[in-house]
């Protein structure tokens, strides 16, 4: 960020305010671009992964090589599809809900460190900022479900509210474990810590529990199977976005993949070494100027590994029932998360003190 601001003030000689705005605009613009490209790729990847798990090929024809142009074609089609607002719907809420859903998730990315210095803002309470801002998505989903004036949508929205709010607890608690180790909420600090001391996941055995709890809770947070109750296709048709069509629907589709990216980025940053390489055999963060961007590539590879596991689970496991989801969150995940945090604390006091 500072590099960008320096570039605008120093090289181009602009005023500080203008430089700051331009720098943010550039950063957010490139983030949006990255997310769009990522989402296209992730949707294509999801279809390919699903297909190969199901002994099919998936998209093969559109665009030539293994259907690479499938997602752009889908996007183009959705863009030019009729946008229906049901007659009984609350038009304002119906119209604004996809934007809120998308913005909530998108805002989380400003605190994610993609590589050394490639971070829009390194907020002091970065971890909790992301958890908090990503929860705005729930409001959008409830708005979407309620304003559609469809019973299936309403069911989906209520399920989403119950589920996501419940799973905030174990996921936030599980994240306390790495925070205890690092002693900071700043996401940038996690990377520097892990570059020095190795990945947090290897710091103590309780961290594996924390990772597992966070991974499961984050699946629920992204509405991924086996927790895809809000859209449960075989029960609620399409859940909260039953009545959405065209471009607005595509926002919900994108949101799912973008929130997958977000939680995977958190998983990678907090547990799996961020943009550092295993055992830090190449110190990515301290390479010469353009090469430190290699960290972005390292992080993205890790993120996709996590996303692949998410997809793998989705196409293998059946869906849970709503009461089972609640039971799992409160009766199993939350105690285990607390156990992991306590264990981590005891471990570190014992080992270091």
């Amino acid at each position, binding site marked *: 960020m500072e590099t960008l601001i320096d570039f605008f003030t120093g090289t181009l000689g602009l005023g500080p305010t203008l430089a700051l705005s331009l720098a943010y605009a550039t950063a957010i613009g490139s983030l949006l671009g990255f997310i769009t490209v990522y989402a296209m790729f992730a949707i294509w990847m999801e*279809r390919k992964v699903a*297909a190969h798990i*199901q*002994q*099919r*090929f*998936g*998209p*093969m*024809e*559109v*665009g030539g090589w293994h*259907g690479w*142009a*499938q997602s*752009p*074609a*889908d*996007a*183009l*089609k959705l*863009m*030019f*599809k*009729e*946008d*229906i607002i049901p007659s009984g719907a609350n038009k304002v809420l119906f119209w604004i809900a996809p934007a809120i859903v998308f913005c909530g998730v998108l805002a989380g990315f400003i605190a994610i460190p993609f590589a050394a210095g490639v971070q829009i803002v390194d907020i002091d309470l970065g971890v909790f900022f992301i958890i908090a801002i990503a929860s705005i998505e729930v409001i959008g989903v409830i708005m979407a479900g309620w304003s559609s004036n469809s019973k299936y949508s309403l069911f989906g929205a209520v399920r989403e509210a119950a589920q996501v709010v419940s799973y905030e607890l174990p996921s936030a608690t599980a994240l306390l474990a790495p925070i205890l180790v690092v002693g900071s909420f700043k996401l940038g600090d996690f990377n520097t810590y892990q570059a020095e001391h190795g990945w947090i996941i290897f710091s103590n055995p309780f961290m594996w529990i924390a990772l597992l709890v966070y991974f499961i809770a984050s699946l629920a947070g992204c509405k991924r199977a086996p927790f895809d109750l809000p859209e449960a*296709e075989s029960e609620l*048709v*399409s859940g909260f*976005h*039953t*009545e*959405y*069509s*065209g471009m607005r*629907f595509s926002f919900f589709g994108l949101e799912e993949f973008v929130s997958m990216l977000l939680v995977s980025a958190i998983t990678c940053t907090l547990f799996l070494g961020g943009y550092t390489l295993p055992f830090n055999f190449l110190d990515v963060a301290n390479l010469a100027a353009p090469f430190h961007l290699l960290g972005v590539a390292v992080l993205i590879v890790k993120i996709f590994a996590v996303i692949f596991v998410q997809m793998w689970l989705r196409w293998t496991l059946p869906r849970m029932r709503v009461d089972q989801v609640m039971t799992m969150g409160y009766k199993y995940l939350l105690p285990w998360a607390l156990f992991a945090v306590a264990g981590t604390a005891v471990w570190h006091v014992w080992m270091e003190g």
Partner: protein
Amino acid sequence: MGLLNNTLPDNKLVGAVDTAVGWGRKSSVWPMTFGIACCAIEMMAVFAATFDLDRFGAGIPRATPRQSDLIIVPGTVNAKMAVRVRRLYDQMAEPRYVIAMGACVCGGGPYVKWGYNTVKGVHKIIPVDIFVPGCPPRPEALMDGILKLREKIGREAVFARRNEANTQMNAKYDAVS
């Protein structure tokens, strides 16, 4: 799209946009999860491993009519169901396409004579783009129907005013398919 449909002059730029949009539309025809009778099983076979409709980008069956582009009517439509089929079609967003799958849906099939409550062809209820005959059609036949539909979509003029030749060609194509 209603306002812009077929209003712009037929020039190169509009033609290029038309081609691009047509490509997008034809490459991602999402069918609706909608099974009525025997043909639905063959339709499921088309989505399944051996035939894999997803290769053509048409493999995301959407459960809700709002998000689907294509309604495959697989199986006999009777008087009680016809009302629902019509409503489903009305709920779909433009552009929407209909494939009539199977003999019953194309024109009554085996139930044409003694069927007191069967609709003799779903084209009596909703406009049909492609007829796929057979009882039930083999999956290859349905795939062929979908490929034909792709061709048809690709030739559609989205923005440009259809000139005479275009209209005639489409009419001819409609008559054949």
